[in-house]
């Protein structure tokens, strides 16, 4: 396993270098440059423009800049953004990252859970009403033009029903009085979620050890309840509760939209794998044993069909950048996807390259984790 990991990491590093190079030259090839916007201002004479170009480092030839960029990259410095000159690209990415991560991980999780549930039920009752409707509805939502879905949802829930906030990720009236920044709350929320995950994993491992079903259930349930209560107490006692609640409230609509849009993907994967699993001998045995239908479905069939779903989930996490552009624009959620669009419009090359490189790293890591997880979950696979 270790050998596999080390080999993969070497491969990742090499891939990353090639990727960064290609991305760099691609961005360079774009016509025009950031300083072109000064052309729209008659007060800026050519000499002044040249001065500005020098400040951005654009006066040196492309290859020199490339070498300079790679040198900085090795030091994990992604350069200085043009449109937010002279802020560093890495600090800009870091500023936007928690917002995107929180929204998309939640959305992907919810979407996959929904897909998992629908998929296993649809496969179990293959050809019946549930199967047909779920597939049909899922595909229709899958192929709906996402911006239209977003607009519709905003209109329905925000304007007509008025139960969800319209846009942005916070409500200024709530946040005015404090010195707190949303960044902090996001980070705390992420930390909270992470701790929750770790606790649940530990409790699951403990549950494996224990023999009886009842004991297993108590361990898992109690750890979940305890962590949740502790979290809520922490949040309310430090007074940060309202803020976290505000953010979560604003997240409901985008998550809902994204889930509707993409649940078909995970549902169909689940359904297809289930259909294959259903023919396996152990499922037939379980049925012959007289176990209740639901138990056979959930404990035996679904669990084994889970594998490709989980790996898909991890991989789709790697694509938070691309998927985000439309959602973030429609819901005024200033995250990484939105940053990409803005960087493109203003031709902020360092920021563009930085974002793409960052996504690349994310995707590569996600693949690696997916492969490791696969081996972990399926004892038949050994590297």
């Amino acid at each position, binding site marked *: 396993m270790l050998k596999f990991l080390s080999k993969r990491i070497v491969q990742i590093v090499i891939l990353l270098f090639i990727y960064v190079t290609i991305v760099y030259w691609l961005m360079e090839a774009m016509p025009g440059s950031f300083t072109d916007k000064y052309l729209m201002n008659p007060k800026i004479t050519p000499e002044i423009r040249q001065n500005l170009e020098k400040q951005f480092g654009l006066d040196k030839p492309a290859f020199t800049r490339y070498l300079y960029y790679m040198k900085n990259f090795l030091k994990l410095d992604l350069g200085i953004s043009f*449109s937010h000159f002279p802020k560093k690209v890495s600090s800009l990415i870091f500023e936007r990252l928690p917002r995107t991560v929180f929204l998309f991980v939640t959305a992907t999780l919810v979407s996959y859970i929904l897909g998992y549930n629908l998929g296993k039920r649809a496969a179990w009752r293959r050809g019946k009403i549930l199967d047909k409707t779920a597939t049909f509805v899922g595909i229709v939502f899958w192929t709906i033009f996402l911006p239209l879905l977003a607009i519709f949802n905003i209109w329905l829930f925000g304007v007509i029903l008025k139960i969800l906030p319209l846009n942005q990720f916070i409500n200024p009236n709530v946040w005015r009085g404090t010195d707190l920044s949303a960044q902090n709350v996001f980070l705390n929320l992420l930390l909270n979620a992470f701790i929750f995950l770790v606790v649940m994993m530990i409790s699951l491992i403990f549950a494996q050890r224990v023999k009886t079903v009842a004991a297993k259930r108590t361990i898992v349930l109690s750890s979940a309840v305890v962590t949740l209560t502790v979290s809520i107490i922490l949040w309310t006692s430090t007074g940060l509760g309202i803020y976290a609640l505000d953010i979560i409230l604003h997240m409901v609509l985008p998550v809902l939209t994204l889930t509707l849009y993409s649940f078909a993907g995970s549902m169909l994967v689940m359904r297809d794998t289930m259909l294959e699993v259903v023919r396996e001998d152990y499922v037939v045995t379980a049925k012959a044993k007289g176990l209740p239908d639901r138990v056979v479905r959930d404990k035996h069939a679904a669990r084994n069909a889970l594998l490709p779903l989980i790996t898909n989930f991890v991989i789709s996490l790697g694509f938070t950048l691309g998927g985000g552009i439309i959602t973030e624009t429609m819901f005024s959620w200033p995250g990484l996807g939105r940053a990409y669009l803005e960087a493109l419009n203003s031709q902020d090359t360092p920021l563009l390259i930085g974002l793409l490189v960052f996504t690349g790293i994310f995707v590569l890591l996600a693949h690696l984790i997916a492969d490791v997880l696969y081996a972990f979950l399926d004892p038949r696979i050994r590297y």
Partner: protein
Amino acid sequence: MKKFLVLILFVASVVAFSQTVNWAFLEEPISLNIWDYLGPNSTVWTGYIMGPRTAGLYAYGDVRFDYIPNLASDLPEITQEGDLWVYTVPLRNDITWSDGTKFTAEDAAWTLNTVLQLIVDYGLGGNWAGYVDPDYFVKAEVVDDYTLKCYFTAASLAKANFGALMVPILQKKYWAPKIEEALKTGNPLQTIYNYDTSDEPLLGSFLLKKWEKGAFIETYARPDYYDRDQVLTLYKNGAVEITNPNTGEKWVGYGEATGEKEIELTTGPYIENIIYRIYLNRTAAITALINGDVSFIFNSLGLQKGEIDQLKNVANVKLISNSVNGFRYMCFNMRRFPMNLKEFRQAIAALVDREFLTGRVLGGQAFPQYGVVPSGNVFWYNPNVEKIAPGAGMSYGERRQFAIDLLKKAGFRWVVEPKIEGDAIVRKGRGLIGPDGQRVEEVELLAPGPGYDPMRATMALYIERWANEIGIPVKANLVDFNYIVDRIWNEPFNFDMYMLGWSLGYYPDHVSDFFHSKRAGVGDWNAAGYQNPEFDKLADEFLAASNIEEARKLSFKLQEMLAEDLPYLVLFDTPVTEAYRTDQIEFPYEKTLSGLQYVDGVPTLVKALAK
């Protein structure tokens, strides 16, 4: 528990809301560091907030954009000392910075001299150089606490009055040590841009309270604002009067303060806080306006037709429409054949029926423009250009015939000559041949694509069709905006015709910038390559004018020359339509060039209506 929270939120918001206005932005400002803002990172959004934070010696008055003293107490006195021109500026003695210190000539002189030094020695770029031109401004001197002397190489309205004397003044006590520190570092400009200015003492009326990145910016009004209760009176005879009952300040200019008043404005501020909410798409901002979350939307492009239709039916939302200071135009590359022939340009101009395009095709969303000074800039606009335009007032057929006649007069021929009968084209023209027998190859028209600007794209396609009908082989290429910019300025001048737009300042010195022959070099503004020594002479006189009436006459002549020669074919522009909630705020006036967003929403004059 939840109800209690909601109650608290409700009470808090009501209390907070009473003297707070919520305004919507469509993009986040970059930085509130003024060096950065007037340097490489200038965006309109940053400008909306920076405007109320800063002040210059002179400023543009409300509504009419009269040139009025702001930090100064009177108009400058111009004398000549040797070969330098000296502008003596008397300053007001009742102005304080937000940290309590008094504003003196030291601050002004320091600012001007430092900006000059940074431009010349360190390459400070951007809009700073638009204010302080190193070719004109020499130095600033302190005479006494409230008198300033500025030295220029020539007397010039453009470079002095509307230039260096309008630059935002910064506090010497706060900035001098910081600038000195920065100059010692390896990259002084970057260090300066990076300074956090949240504790900067300001001369403006609104100070920063909180900036929640990505979500909103909150500013609050200065309780000790020195211009509180100042009254600005504009008289119909052109006179301007500034008085302040608290300090006894009084200034009158441009005539006698008698007769009928056009408008009287009393400065507040009347509100305590402004929250600028950042939305990332227009639908969101407008929905917020409809919902009552915000009272006004900042948008330099104005509202779209559909949005206007939507808002027309919403109670308590008022729509206002203003003309803009800008235009969209087509430019001929006069370095190439056949664009170098005046008759060719005039023929194309004759073909373009602006009224049809703006009135019918664009559904009244745009209005025609004829000259290089927009018609909205009333003081500087020469209405004669409308009459000089080829094809003015002609019908469809008459335009085409006129164009054909123009070409024939210049010596053009066709393989197949177009024939017009009445308003119909009986025979399409083909194969245009120039006067020297050279065949006219495809003429490329670069225009932005429908994604960027559907109006220009549509216009380009119509021009293409109209030209093709009489045999002029125009081909419209709808491409990315940056690609056009690249072709024109970086390649350079690799174009036949292109279509872009300008957003202009009030003082029309762009007329010289765009058409003077010395600005025709690579990367410079005279992209058309217009070379006319007569024009150059007049333009130089215009820039050097020190009397505004004289400048105006010269500007009129320049506009007429350009309307005749047509290096630019100015096409149209769109009025800027804005909307605000009448149940939440009240503006003192609604008619102003480029709309209320151009004057930052007049935060010192706007009133909040109690909910």
